[in-house]
């Protein structure tokens, strides 16, 4: 990193102050090539250039380590005023910030500029389950928390665990420590356990269940989006069933804290252009993402609320102090 960093410094010094608009932007993917963050950088970067939102190709840098913590620290400590820097983020970023997993750094040390796609959260039961809709399931848990075990693909305290807890709080459950959750190695295992009847419900992402949905072994009680998802129109949202939870693995960006409001609005505008492009719609369809466009201040507000909620729940279930 050092040499490239120096180069950027020198180049900006040479070009002077007014020339930032002509510089190539850099997108940092806080993971190795191939993962979700890498996808975000490469797709968004490519589309921004293709549709003319930026005038030079966006350069992608992979900076893996600490579950995104290394890149976060790099941005906060060394690039705080870099107007040409964007960083890929997802639900994992906000969950880890909420649970203090980035060594004490907090979400207000950067600015969340927007999300333009989501792998929607889903709540699934086996096809032969007695729970016909989301209210059935949630009321059963509220009445007797021991009667239902949730299975998910993330560890205890991970985002798959949080989704049913958010729903249950809306349904009136006060003591969420009573909710039984087991974390398995991926959503596929979690569904297998649910179809087998060992757990009563599965919490995961849309992309994890598509194969099982075709086989007819499962029933999706709710998808956690604002609107029903294209291609899966018969799956009701939690919102329309009266439980106001919108959660999923969103794909988006943050930028350094120290940039001007104009820069923030500029990136928000560019991201909006990507969201509206046909290229991005194709990329989403190919990767099982649903539209989820929140840019600018609206997204910052969404993130702030999400972090507050996850932090409180993590404390309640004892994942953090």
């Amino acid at each position, binding site marked *: 990193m050092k040499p490239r960093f120096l180069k950027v410094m020198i180049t900006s010094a040479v070009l002077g102050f007014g020339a930032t608009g002509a510089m190539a932007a850099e997108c940092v993917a806080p993971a190795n090539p191939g993962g979700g963050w890498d996808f975000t950088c490469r797709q968004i970067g490519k589309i921004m250039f293709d549709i003319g939102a930026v005038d030079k190709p966006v350069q992608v840098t992979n900076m893996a380590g600490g579950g995104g913590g290394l890149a976060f620290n790099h941005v906060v400590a060394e690039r705080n005023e870099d107007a040409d820097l964007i960083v890929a983020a997802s639900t994992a970023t906000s969950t880890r910030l909420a649970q203090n997993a980035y060594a004490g750094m907090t979400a207000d040390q950067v600015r969340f500029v927007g999300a333009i796609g989501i792998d929607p959260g889903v709540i699934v039961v086996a096809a032969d389950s007695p729970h016909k809709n989301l209210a059935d399931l949630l009321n059963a848990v509220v009445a007797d928390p021991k009667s239902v075990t949730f299975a998910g693909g993330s560890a205890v305290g991970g985002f798959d665990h949080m989704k049913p807890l958010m729903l249950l709080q809306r349904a009136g459950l006060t003591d969420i420590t009573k909710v*039984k959750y*087991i974390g398995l190695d991926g959503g596929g295992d979690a569904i297998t356990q649910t179809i*087998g009847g060992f*757990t009563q419900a599965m919490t995961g992402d849309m992309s994890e269940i598509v194969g099982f949905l075709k086989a007819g072994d499962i029933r999706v009680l709710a998808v956690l989006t604002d609107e029903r998802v294209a291609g899966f129109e018969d799956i009701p949202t939690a919102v329309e069933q009266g439980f106001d939870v919108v959660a999923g693995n969103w794909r988006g960006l943050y930028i350094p804290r120290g940039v001007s409001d104009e820069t923030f609005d500029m990136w928000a505008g560019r991201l909006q252009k990507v969201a509206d492009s046909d290229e991005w719609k194709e990329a989403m369809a190919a990767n099982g993402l649903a539209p989820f466009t929140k840019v600018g201040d609206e997204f910052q507000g969404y993130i702030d609320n999400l972090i507050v909620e996850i932090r409180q729940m993590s404390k309640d279930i004892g994942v953090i102090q």
Partner: protein
Amino acid sequence: MEIIDNLALGFSIALSPYTLILAVVGCFLGTIIGALPGLGPSNGVAILIPITFTLGLDATSALVLMTSVYYGAMYGGRISSILLNIPGDEPALMTTLDGYPMAKAGRSGDALVLSGVASFVGALLATVGLMLLAPMLARVAYLFGPAEYFALYLLAFCTLGGMASNNQAKAALASCIGLGIAMVGIDSASGMPRLTGGNLHLYDGIDFLVAIVGLFAIAEVFFFIESHGKNSSIGVKLGKVTIPWKDIFDTKWTMLRASGVGFIAGILPGAGASLGSFMAYMSEKAIAGEKGGFGTGVAKGIAAPEAGNNAAAGGALVPMLTLGVPGSGTTAVLLALLMTLNITPGPTLFTDRPEVVWGLIASLLIANFVLLLMNVPMVKIFVRVLMVPPWVLLPGVTMVSFVGIYSLSGSYFDLLLMVGFGVLGYVLRKLDIPTVPVILGILLGGNMEDALRRAMVISDGEWTYLYSSPIAIGLWIAAIVGFVAPMFLRSVLRKPQRITD
């Protein structure tokens, strides 16, 4: 027919020149490894695993190479059994009983050809069985919850432990050492480090490949140093090799029966090829009765164990691919390879990664024909290999181990750890404690703990949940029988302590 479509997909992958070359190389190396006394399928595969990382092979290629080695070693084991009266690997032990007497009677060529054909029949039938049975068994995974998985892991420990040693206490001790090593690292449920002694290298736990290469390959080198590398020598001359059509024809039913028995023994978690060849030989001996002359160099006595152990090798792949529970020591090593390659065995493997499964099955079918060619017309080459002096062979093993493990992690701490495991393996074998249960413990310990913890969450800490379903009860009974029964069979089941599969 779905199977035809799947096979077509498999052959389209397996018949690519690169994959084909890997299969041929694997067969060749495997036969050599099997033929050399001391090196068996499980340590052979363990030694070669690092090579797949050095070569940067993708999942399918790595799996094809390693299973070809596995099948090849099962073929090769018979060569030194017949010519030296030393089993090249443990499953080939039963082949010495009739193979060596036949060779001494001047029919060594006949014995090698006959056993090669029997190996072919056993392996071919088992591969077909794998093809038909594995997709069906994949549905079975829906019947397995945390309690059933816990019992299944226990069964693997009990049957492998029961077979792997003449002393159950030592097998149990070895399993516990393995489970203890598996506990090192960060506890996934609480995020707290366990047994790391503050050493950051141990936070991610101990890589099972480091343990496997140390326990098998490095320990082997220590034994070589101790014995000062005495040369091996051929006990019986190999004459002109002709095909004994009459013997092959006479033993056709023996081969079929032995293949069936071996395949079933292979599917049982943990039992493996040794049990397969033992049961095949004993059942054929019982069918033939006193007049059969088993033990004096009869054709059926050679065909039965060879068909049996090769069929068991195929059978052992079934539980490994469908449930992620190895059916033998070697499949435990293969499972480690799969997990390192980020492939999760289980019911979804057949739908998510059909190219891996069917490419593997097609490669096994091809490898089998390659092996028949290598082991019948070209058997003389491998007899030559038996004369390679250990002082050439074992430094090569050492080099491959060090380079391989370093290329895996780039950490010199892992090399120290590997040597440490080599010392552990040497000490354990000196004390007559089997090393396979240690590997099994390291490999399955984490999963077994997770299964137990999940079961406890679901049942609110009620431990009777662990045997609350018919499947779980059946597995518990099988586990107890598998552990206890060998004590009573000991008088029939005499064998050396060295276990390689």
